[in-house]
């Protein structure tokens, strides 16, 4: 299998995994979250509806019942308690305030209006409560309308329970925000329970409230309005406070949503049914009660079993998904491992072949030298012994042979040094660049003397490098600067400067220069800008320079003006500086 085949098959395996496994899981969860979003929309819609209903009830009773004096709107059924004007007013205020509760209405004015409306409700509720408990009269009960038809001892006054409910409702509307939302929700749950008590009593056919029940008396539509209001209040912020557990996407939320309506409706309906049977004379009170208990027991246990079953199935599929996920993770891990092993193997193979190649280059050039030495030596011997003894042509032939052998020797020597840059390089150690330049100049002594070159150097830093290679690098660059000279004696300037995290070295000369268009070519192996007749050379020197600089993590480039001179520059990262922060040590410059 080729590398490409292997990679593509690996990625197919990865892709297969993604399309076969994960999406099922993802689609499921995204579906649930989509339906969940719908749930929130429905709940918020119910909340708005509730605020509208509560406001409408209040309006109906206040305007229709009291202002227009329609008895039916005040009491619903003849003989029932009526909704007093203050209660109706409070419902209008509560309904409006509830409308302003939404998460989308957090602007200053909405909050201010809501708090103002709720504040009035609180005040009315509080005063009514005080009136009821302390039997005071603030003269607020008949402020709007005269209550002439009331059965109570204090006409137009709302009941204790209504007063408490409005106090709670107003407080909930003011407080219900952010982290205190649960306070409001608990207040509203109390309202709901008290309203339900009254509503159920009506549903079971209670006509007159006596004894303790007197304190709970509410008009029929008052209790219904409280129920509607509390439901609306709870649903207006379905993601906050105590509602979180009920509306959440978790199994707990699902179970709560299934059980809560049942927990409210089942006892109410059962109670009514058993009561009806008693009224019809089928059995007596105690039996009705035990029947109620038993039927509740059966139905709730059934409900609980049903829910447990659903949760069990849900858990099962969840575990199935988890298992599949674990399996695919395991598969992914294995593929990964395999891939890593392959990469490691291939890297090792690559390193091996690289090493072999360098070894080959080294051995080849080394072993090539041996026979070549023979050719060179014997042609030279021929030339020496028989020069002039053969004809002129023979002398020329010998000359060419000697020249060819000599050039090939230089070529092999240069190739050897190029292959040595990678294969025979030493570890980087703190290196005095000045010393390296001095060494290079020593090696170039002859050509410097011959050409009467003037070389200005330094100062130079100490940095992490392969000293022997630095010597070779400077020797090649300075050697070139001297070699490619004009009629003037060469003047070479070698400098170092710190630029960011890199040391920039420059070797500038006053030589023949080159066409800047050729800049890229000159660093390539075997590329030469001059014929052998103009300048000797193999075209390897600058390739060696490039390889050395790149091995040190730097880069090399050249600028030139033909006839004026060239500047060869290279960088070497300042590893010492990053290694130990002691810049004083590093910046100690050495003069050549």
């Amino acid at each position, binding site marked *: 299998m080729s590398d490409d085949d292997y990679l593509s098959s690996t990625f197919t395996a990865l892709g297969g995994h993604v399309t076969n496994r994960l999406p099922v899981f993802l689609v499921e969860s995204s579906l649930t979250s989509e339906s969940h979003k719908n749930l929130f929309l429905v709940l918020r819609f119910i909340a708005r509806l509730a605020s509208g209903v509560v406001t409408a009830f209040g309006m109906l009773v206040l305007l229709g019942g009291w202002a227009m004096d329609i008895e039916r709107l005040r009491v619903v059924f003849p003989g029932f308690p009526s909704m007093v004007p203050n209660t109706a007013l409070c419902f209008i205020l509560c309904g409006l305030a509830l409308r302003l509760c939404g998460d989308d209405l957090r602007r200053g004015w909405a909050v201010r209006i809501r708090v103002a409306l709720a504040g009035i409700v609180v005040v009315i509720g509080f005063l009514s409560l005080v009136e009821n408990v302390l039997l005071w009269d603030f003269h607020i009960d008949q402020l709007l309308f005269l209550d002439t038809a009331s059965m109570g001892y204090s006409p137009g006054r709302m009941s204790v329970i209504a007063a408490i409910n409005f106090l709670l409702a107003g407080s909930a509307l003011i407080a219900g925000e952010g982290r205190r939302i649960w306070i409001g929700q608990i207040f509203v749950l109390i309202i709901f329970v008290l309203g339900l008590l009254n509503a159920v009593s009506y549903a079971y056919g209670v006509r007159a409230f006596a004894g303790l029940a007197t304190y709970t008396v509410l008009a029929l539509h008052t209790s219904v309005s409280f129920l509607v209001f509390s439901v609306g209040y709870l649903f207006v912020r379905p993601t906050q406070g105590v509602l979180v557990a009920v509306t959440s996407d978790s199994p707990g939320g699902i179970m709560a949503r299934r059980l809560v309506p049942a927990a409210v409706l089942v006892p109410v309906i059962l109670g009514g049914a058993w009561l009806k049977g008693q009224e019809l004379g089928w059995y007596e009170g105690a039996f009705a009660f035990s029947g109620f208990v038993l039927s509740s027991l059966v139905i709730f246990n059934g409900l609980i079993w049903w829910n447990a079953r659903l949760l069990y199935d849900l858990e099962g599929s969840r575990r199935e998904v988890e298992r599949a996920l674990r399996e695919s993770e395991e598969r992914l891990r294995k593929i990964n491992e395999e891939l890593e092993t392959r990469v490691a193997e291939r890297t090792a193979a690559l390193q091996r072949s690289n090493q072999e190649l360098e070894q080959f280059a080294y051995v080849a050039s080394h072993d090539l030298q*041996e026979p070549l*030495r*023979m050719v060179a030596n*014997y042609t*030279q011997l021929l030339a020496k012994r028989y020069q002039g003894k053969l004809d002129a042509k023979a002398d020329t032939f010998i000359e060419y042979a000697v020249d060819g052998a000599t050039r090939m020797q230089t070529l092999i020597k240069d190739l050897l040094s190029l292959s040595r840059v990678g294969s025979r390089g030493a570890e980087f150690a703190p290196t005095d660049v000045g010393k390296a330049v001095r060494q290079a100049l020593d090696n170039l002594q002859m050509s410097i003397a011959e050409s009467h070159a003037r070389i200005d150097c330094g100062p130079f830093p100490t940095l992490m490098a392969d000293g022997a290679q630095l010597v070779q690098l400077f020797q090649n660059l300075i050697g070139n600067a001297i070699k490619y000279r004009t009629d003037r004696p060469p003047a070479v300037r070698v400098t170092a400067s710190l630029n960011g995290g890199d040391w920039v070295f420059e070797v500038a000369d006053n030589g023949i220069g080159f066409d800047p268009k050729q800049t890229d070519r000159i660093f390539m192996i075997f590329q030469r800008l001059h014929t052998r007749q103009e300048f000797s050379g193999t075209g390897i020197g600058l390739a060696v320079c490039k390889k050395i600089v790149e091995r040190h993590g730097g880069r090399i480039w050249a600028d030139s003006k033909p006839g004026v001179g060239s500047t060869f520059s290279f960088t070497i990262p300042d590893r010492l500086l990053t290694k130990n922060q002691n810049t004083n040590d590093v910046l100690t410059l050495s003069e050549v």
Partner: protein
Amino acid sequence: MYLRPIETLLVEDNEGDVLLTREAFSEGKLAINLNVVNNGEDALAFLRRQGAYADAPRADVVLLDLNLPKLSGNEVLAAIRADPALRVTPVVILTSSDAHEDILKSYGLRANCYITKPVGLKEFETVVRSIEGFWFTIVRLPSRLSDFHAELP
């Protein structure tokens, strides 16, 4: 100046180098008897006068290449230094290798000097002239001591 020609053993497998060395020595003024063997085993047999080399002369100086068939130059050198009869014989390493490890190893085995065969005829001739001028002229060779004693009485 010695009375009899200097017996030199050249251990070299490359016939080209043998001829070149022979030519270079022949241009010199000294009477040098250049004995040649082509591998390490023959070198030791020559020095110990064994087998075909029973009548071989005693070598004054050994010129030893490193890259040899059968026994490498360094192995020959080690055998010479381990042999009480041969250990004083000067050994000049004359090889094409300029590897640092070869140089260090040879001196470690107590080679008397290490010379890398130069590239180029002129340079090679210079080396041969230097060997002549130093080892065969200036240096006092252990194998020649008895000659002096023999002359004295």
